[in-house]
């Protein structure tokens, strides 16, 4: 059948949960970041799907949002990776288990 809105939504949901699973289940910090990127992408997909199948596609609201989202995701990835590199330099590891100085 033709893909309609619900297909895209389910796709984005699956993508999101995959990204989430990776973010919470992997040990390496970089992979957590990767999972977060996937989650962001899933959200973007959601936006575009709703723009396409939504009430007012002429307003281009979804597209605009996604553009900004991509830009911000890029900035965030850069900063995050810089942080990981800085931590790696101090601790010589990217394992999130061992970076727990803020332990309560």
């Amino acid at each position, binding site marked *: 059948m033709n893909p309609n809105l619900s*297909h895209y939504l389910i796709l984005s949901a699956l993508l999101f949960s995959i990204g989430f699973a990776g973010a919470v289940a992997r040990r390496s910090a970089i992979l957590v970041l990767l999972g977060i990127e996937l989650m962001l*992408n899933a959200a973007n997909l959601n936006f*575009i799907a709703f723009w396409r199948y939504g009430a007012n596609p002429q307003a*281009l609201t979804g597209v605009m949002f996604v553009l900004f989202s991509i830009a911000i995701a890029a900035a965030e990835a850069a900063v995050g990776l810089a942080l990981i590199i800085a931590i*790696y330099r101090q601790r010589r590891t990217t394992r999130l288990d061992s970076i727990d100085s803020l332990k309560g």
Partner: protein
Amino acid sequence: MLNEIAFYLAAAMTLAFALAAMTLRHLVHCALCAAAAFAGLAVIYLQLHAEFVGFAQLMVYVGAIAILIVFAVLLTRGEEIRPDSNQSSPSWMTGVAVAILVLGGITIPVFTSPSLQRLPPAAAVAPVKIIGQELMTRYVLPLELVGVLLTAALLGAVVIAMREESEVKRQIRPPAPERAEPEEATSLR
């Protein structure tokens, strides 16, 4: 017809690569699979008639972010000596369970809501010209702010990742003899 096949194919590919990205052992493999997943997503964007977004996705995500991740992986490779470096954390099952729960939470509304099953009305177009016009009129403030944000992020990333002078010296010189504990123990505070 072709639409359907294209969609399912792209969707399956994206999901497969995403799954691979999250489960592979080798970090570089993960990064490359992720790049493929991003590309698949770009295809889906194209399908949805959001061409600009699709190309922007390719350029930014695949061309920049994935590469960045590969660089980061390569720069933090000191622990590959140990074989179990990329294993999942000890409690990965809890995380997966939570993820499944999240999945359930998100998909159940999709299934239970009848209004989501609808076909697109007319074709949606997103010409670049209109996007540009919008950016300069309605979305000019967010545009500027994002510009500032990107600048800050750029500078911030540079500053954070920059090696300090003392660290340079410490790398060149061997560490002092009285400092017996490994560098792992030095705190980040």
